[in-house]
């Protein structure tokens, strides 16, 4: 009996108990993500935080950085180049977000049919989104030169009066860049909407039709409200991407003619790698990050209010 009791006592002493077992089980997942977290911290977090510190210095890449407080941010407020670039960036962001969303929605609605060639057309419209932005930039730089294919094509179909110096005329260069961005990414928005359209219950549309709703009313009262989540995703991705826009602009125009197409990202790049003002450039990067965060946050909060369940 004593032996039995001792064994039972010993067994209880070895057994960590259900609470501790649960605790150990809960620790395992966290332990497993530690390597990934460490990797993320080393590759992303540390450089980001360490880089952010340089925004408060005059580091030029050579001599030791000197703390300058908020000088870089004050200069950012008074420098004409970043202010003009900010205006361009916001114009690009707003116009591409709206136009690309509308075009992507229109394409999705047009191709969410039983059209025989719909898959081919979907592929064609989506293909530009798969190409690297730099390739797109070089391609369109060639297409839009004064003697390039765009003007040749317009002349060939009797629209010679519409030929333009697409990238060399400051009054239309920014619009040309916006056009290229929308051309490249409208297919991506279309795919997001096509996925959203798959989630619109057929029975709701049928019920609306039985109740006498026409095509326009079904679109307005049933389809579009149910597409708000897709709109949230599409607009957020477009907005964030266009606020950070760099590759296509740098390749097609370098920010020119003059400063007509300069974005904040282009100014940031030039300040760091052309002029060697890394501290000032980092300040621009911080401001751009805050702008992207603020816009994305406000947009997400705003659009989520309109989301409804099917």
């Amino acid at each position: 009996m004593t032996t039995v009791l001792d064994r039972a006592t010993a067994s209880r002493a070895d057994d960590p108990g259900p609470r501790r077992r649960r605790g150990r089980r809960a620790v395992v997942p966290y332990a497993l993500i530690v390597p990934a977290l460490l990797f993320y911290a080393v590759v992303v977090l540390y450089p980001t935080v360490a880089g952010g510190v340089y925004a408060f210095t005059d580091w030029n890449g050579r001599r030791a950085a000197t703390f300058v407080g908020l000088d870089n941010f004050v200069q950012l407020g008074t420098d004409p180049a970043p202010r003009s670039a900010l205006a361009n960036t916001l114009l690009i962001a707003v116009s591409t977000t709206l136009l690309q969303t509308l075009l992507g929605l229109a394409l999705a609605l047009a191709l969410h049919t039983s059209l025989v060639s719909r898959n081919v057309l979907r592929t064609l419209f989506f293909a530009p989104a798969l190409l690297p932005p730099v390739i797109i930039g070089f391609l369109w730089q060639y297409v839009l030169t004064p003697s390039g294919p765009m003007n040749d094509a317009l002349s060939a179909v009797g629209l010679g009066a519409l030929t333009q110096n697409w990238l060399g005329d400051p009054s239309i260069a920014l619009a040309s860049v916006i056009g290229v961005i929308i051309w490249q990414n409208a297919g991506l928005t279309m795919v997001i909407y096509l996925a959203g359209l798959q989630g619109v219950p057929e029975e709701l549309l049928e019920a609306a039709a039985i109740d006498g709703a026409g095509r326009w009313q079904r679109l307005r009262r049933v389809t579009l409200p149910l597409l708000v989540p897709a709109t949230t995703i599409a607009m957020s991705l477009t907005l964030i991407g266009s606020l950070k826009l760099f590759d296509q602009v740098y390749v097609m125009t370098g920010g020119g003619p003059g400063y007509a197409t300069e974005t904040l990202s282009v100014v940031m790049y030039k300040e760091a790698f052309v002029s060697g003002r890394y501290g000032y450039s980092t300040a621009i990067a911080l401001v751009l990050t805050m702008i992207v965060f603020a816009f994305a946050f406000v947009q997400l909060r705003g659009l989520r209010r309109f989301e409804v369940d099917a």
Partner: protein
Amino acid sequence: MSKHSENPTRGTRTARTAAATLVLATTLAGCGFVNTGGGDGSDGGTNGTSGTVTAYVNTEQSAGLAPLVEAFEQETGSTVDVSSATTDELNQQLRVQLTSGTAADLIRVSPGSSSPVAAGVLGRADELADLSDAGWVAELSEDTRSLAEVEGEVVAFPVSRNAIVMAYNREVFERAGVEVPTTWSELLTACEQLSAAGVTPISTPFQGGIYLQFWVYALAATLVYAENPEIDAQMAAGETSFVSDARWNETFARIAQLNDAGYFSDGMLGIPPDQGLQSVATGESAMVLLVSAGLPQLYGYAEGGEEAFDVFALPANEDASSTHVAIAPDFLAVNAEAENPEGARAFLDFLARPENVEAYADEMGVLPGLAVDAELSSDALEPIMPMFDSGRTAGYANYLWPNGDVQQTMLQSGQEWLDGTIDTPALLEQMDAEYARGTS
């Protein structure tokens, strides 16, 4: 009892943590994220003991150096490991490489203070080795030495010198009955004749602004530097400025005159350089102002190759004998932190031999970097050689400007100026503002 049962658990946890840390460290080291400190430079792939010289040069230098690298390796048994990039990319990457201690032994640097990686800028920061005791220093021409020297020390070696020349399509000139102009008014007459013949007189691929700077430097060589060689010292002392100096105003007025007369390409701000050169090769345009290193590219666009073109010095006034040519040395320098400085210096000494100076110039169609007796087989630059031989040359204007932003502003705001958005004084004032920021 409970104390006994906790201690082994903590020990196990510590051991596991240590093991995990070790595994992570090993993994990261394997991925190259952690410097294990194992490389002592003694293996065959590193410098120093193996006699390998690393070099980071621009693409033009890489092409010209290739045969000489081979000859050097055969002669010395050492290796020259050359990496290359376009000048723009190189300028952007080199700064980071120097800061992080990963720059090559031999590096391409811009002359003067024209960029954050120019000889003057890096030299003042003690990032370039002093080469003053090299034998070839005696062969430096005066204008080259002024750009290679920092505080009395020579810190750069000129592999070649480029000249800004006007290249023209011979057939187009002949068809229009145009003579090669030697004065400004003759240039205007030639443009008028070409325009009347239905040809764009001057191709101006000003997208990006790079080709605009050639106009400023070429005209300034005659209008500014030939008349007042002390202009840079005066500007540095604050005695004059772009906007207050009549010669600088005249330089930009000349460009405006050609633009206003319609002698430049239509839509010039949207034309990239390669298309501008192609238009001259096809005869759509008659001439283009470019650096001599760009001539091989121009030749490549024409069926007749080099024979289809000739060059002349851009006249800027009515006295043909006062026309100067803008020239620029193309530099290599030895990194002050080079792993194999002796090897790098030996390679420069090898390049400085007269036969190698000649070989490089012939290969690239450029002017010799050193003032040695060189017989060039290419006669592409023959028309400007008399000016070169008689010292009627001037460095590119921007090389002695205090920072690269003056040039950058000239290129960007210059496009607004060409478009008529701003006037000449506004452009020059902007350049003055950047000049006033001092050395970078």
